[in-house]
């Protein structure tokens, strides 16, 4: 009996992420092509229009695996907006699950919330002790490089992105 209960709990725990995973919705912020694989030259499996609702199933680098009413496949991450749109979707989504963050960190204490509105900024009084504290954590350039190395990060040569490929903007 005890074992049975345990199994049930285990099942619930196991499937919870899947449930919220299925619940992640999104919408297209522009018309784009859906592809069979997360690559620019992969076979086209369909497309969608701006504003079309879709489900987000997975993420790989710059690509999201989605499902629309008609078809499914991979689209560029920047063509899709997460959430149901406007209503402030609080569900832990697939992206959270992918990063192991689901179910954690979403709890925000409701007491003692400190805002930071214009009025508060305007009336702020200089705090030297806090600046000193901030400066006490400063890392040197070399320390930064060391930190990168310890995480396996390597600097990559990459030019600044130009304003827009399509032009139209000054």
């Amino acid at each position: 009996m005890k074992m049975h209960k345990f199994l049930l709990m285990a099942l619930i725990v196991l499937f919870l992420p899947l449930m919220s995973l299925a619940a992640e919705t999104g919408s297209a912020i522009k018309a784009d092509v859906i592809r069979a694989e997360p690559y620019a030259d992969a076979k086209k499996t369909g497309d969608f229009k701006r504003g079309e609702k879709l489900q987000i199933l997975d993420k790989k680098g710059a690509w999201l695996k989605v499902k629309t009413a008609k078809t499914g496949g991979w689209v560029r991450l920047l063509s899709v907006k997460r959430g149901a749109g406007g209503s402030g979707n609080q569900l832990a989504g697939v992206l959270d699950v992918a990063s192991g963050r689901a179910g954690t960190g979403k709890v925000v204490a409701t007491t003692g919330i400190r805002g930071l509105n214009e009025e508060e900024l305007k009336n702020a009084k200089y705090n030297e002790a806090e600046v000193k504290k901030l400066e006490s954590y400063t890392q040197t350039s070399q320390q930064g490089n060391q930190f990168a190395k310890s995480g396996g990060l390597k600097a990559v040569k990459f030019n600044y992105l130009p304003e827009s490929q399509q032009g139209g903007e000054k």
Partner: protein
Amino acid sequence: MKVIYFILIVSLSFLMPQAYALDLGDTLKDVIKSNVSGKTGNDSKEVSSPDAAKNEKRINFRNPSMDEEIQIGREITGNLLGAAPLVNDAALQKYVNQVGRWVANQSERGNLPWHFGVIESEDINAFAAPGGYVVITKGLYRKLENEAQLAGVLAHEIAHVTKSHHLKILQKSQLLDLGADLLGKQLGKNNQIIQKVIGSGAEICARSLDKNAEFEADRMGVTLTARAGYEPYGLPEVLQTIGQTNKNDNSVALLFKTHPHPDDRLLKLDEAIGNRLDAIKDGKTLSNRFYKLKN
């Protein structure tokens, strides 16, 4: 002493007709002299003094030295920290400095003594001040899922600093209003005068930049993230997350007022990125090393 003198010059330069403001030579020292000695001083053609000549230094706020820029940023940051102090977690603060420093090393201004901090506020926002001061709120940090996303957020702010976006705002508007207020007043300590320059408290942090400056900071932010070896979509992912927040939610009120809506920022990024990032294949997210908040 040099700094004090600079601030005097900077502050007073804007008492003058604009033609003079661009060249702060002897004329300016004369204004200072006349002002300090209690004469009314809208006229910049006063008699020169030999004392003033001793401290001669031609400085122009339009092209401040690194030390001067830092001094201004420090004052702004001090005010901001007066509104919301640092989160009391040394490991967290060290971590954001490590990530931030590495990303800043990829910019043109790796020589600045960059400072990063997380402040005690549930608002979702981040701020940059001249000279390499970058602050993000705990509310925003809470939304982050991995180190690449943190790098992306910090990179956007680093770009504001390297492009002197806020310094330019000060140069354009605020400083020019100074005049009347300073006239006839006893000049205070140097930081009191900087206070005059930056306005009331940390209100400069609530100012909106030009939309194009924000889009530029986004493009540079993605670039710096990529250069640092991270998964380059860290910043866009955060924008997607923030975009889900209800517009009427207080926690994003200031961010949405000072920045274009995340959806617009994503569209602009998409236009700029196209397939340019396709070649970057092994960018890291480092989610396992991402520092988890204690509360």
